[in-house]
């Protein structure tokens, strides 16, 4: 029975050692609380005691709580689609994540290439929007088509579709995901779709505009609808 006892003793010692460790690290955190002005009146200056900022008189906040707000430019906001970590393939067979689109205004629509009814009209609607944007601003915008049929729409097929539709320039992008990443992405856009036969889907016709931080700013619903609002939001975002 001695080996058993040894094992148990070892286990107890390990447990105690670990619990001690975690306590020690917690203590460190408590001691190290620093305070900062939420408006950054004095740059990144920190205070060890809570109080008010000597410049704007706003209440100082713990540095740890401020982080998300102060670094909006580099971090991803709560409402950004860049929070989705799924991987996609472009028509050039490059692997990307949505956050790789960061910094550009993004116009997105979900289609599938074998679609005969609504998708050609959605493609036309996207082109219509692109036509309204002055050439100088096109470089700041990415027009993205996300396939709802990832089984059929391979990068090769998407590339062929791009060529057929004269959408092979840099501002156009076509994405293939997986069944689950497409479902998740559609849910973020509130797009509904259903496979009604092996080659046909029912789907909502929604064109979505995202700002360079990946936050949804505008949605245009329907086919062949007036795109003035969508164009307006794009013009504002690319000023």
């Amino acid at each position, binding site marked *: 029975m001695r080996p058993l006892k040894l094992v148990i003793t070892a286990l107890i010692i390990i447990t105690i050692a670990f619990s001690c460790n975690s306590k020690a690290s917690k203590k460190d955190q408590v001691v190290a609380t620093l305070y900062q002005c939420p408006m950054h009146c004095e740059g990144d200056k920190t205070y060890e005691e809570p109080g008010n900022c000597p410049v704007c008189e706003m209440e100082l906040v713990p540095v740890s709580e401020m982080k998300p707000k102060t670094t909006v430019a580099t971090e991803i906001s709560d409402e950004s689609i860049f929070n989705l970590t799924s991987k996609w393939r472009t028509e050039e067979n490059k692997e990307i994540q949505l956050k790789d689109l960061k910094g550009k205004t993004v116009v997105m629509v979900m289609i599938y290439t074998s679609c005969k009814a609504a998708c050609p009209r959605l493609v036309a609607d996207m082109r219509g929007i692109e036509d309204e944007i002055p050439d100088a601003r096109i470089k700041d915008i990415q027009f993205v088509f996300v396939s709802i049929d990832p089984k059929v729409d391979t990068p090769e097929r998407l590339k062929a579709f791009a060529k057929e539709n004269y959408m092979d320039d840099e501002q156009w992008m076509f994405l293939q995901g997986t069944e689950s990443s497409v479902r998740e992405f559609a849910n973020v856009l509130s797009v509904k779709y259903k496979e009604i036969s092996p080659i046909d889907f029912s*789907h909502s016709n929604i064109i979505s505009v995202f700002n360079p931080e990946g936050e949804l700013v505008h949605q245009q619903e329907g086919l062949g609808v007036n795109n003035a609002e969508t164009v307006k939001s794009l013009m504002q975002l690319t000023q």
Partner: protein
Amino acid sequence: MTSQAIRVMCVFLVFQTLLFAQADGMVLIEGSRYLPLYGRDSTVVEVKDFMMDQYPVSNADYEKFVKENPKWRKSKVIKLFADDSYLNNWKNDQELNHSANPNSPVTYVSWFAAEAYCNCQGKRLPTIDEWEYVAMADETTKDARVKASYNKKILDWYEAPRSNENTIGQTPKNVWGVYDLHGLVWEWTQDFNSVLITGESRKDKDQDNNLFCGSAAINATDLMNYAAFMRYAIRGSLKAKYTMKNLGFRCIKDIKQLDQ
């Protein structure tokens, strides 16, 4: 002596594994073809074999999940993945309200949260077809939809108030061994966003033609199945980040094919 101790521990380990496998709480659902209320081309759909949780996920289960996964805590969850009422009946990040029953189904959870919970356990949410397939059973029959008593019971529940506060496992289990598909809460499905009806008749008339391509809208197969109509209507009105007092979920697991 040493080898005996090792043997004892091995037996213990094996026993514990078995215990866990049983406590896993899933039952086998044998797939088949059936005619759902809204199907593909309005014909039969095929459901493959899968394992389904016997019970909806409880408050206690979810409490454990958020303890292990800080990003799904009430204050940490990002807005893209859940609306403001996420875990509305929780006191704080890790605890339920005092009045909430740990053995009630968890509600106020979004689709994203439900999907993450299932994925964490190597499971997934059931599709609408899979869920409806199991839910059309009663205590004795796999397809009880033709029985008046089946529909009556479900509709009685739809009228019962605050059923989300009941304890799980109190309704009679169906022929598969699954509890509470009817009687407690609505449940999220993986492809809830494939229901292309808005659930609002005025909207359906004006906008559908523009908003939806194809025609899977109003072509239900069984106009008598009013209860199922309500479920589809609810699904059609949901968005993935919505959370509701009477909307919970359960998970299922695919059965690995032997040839894979």
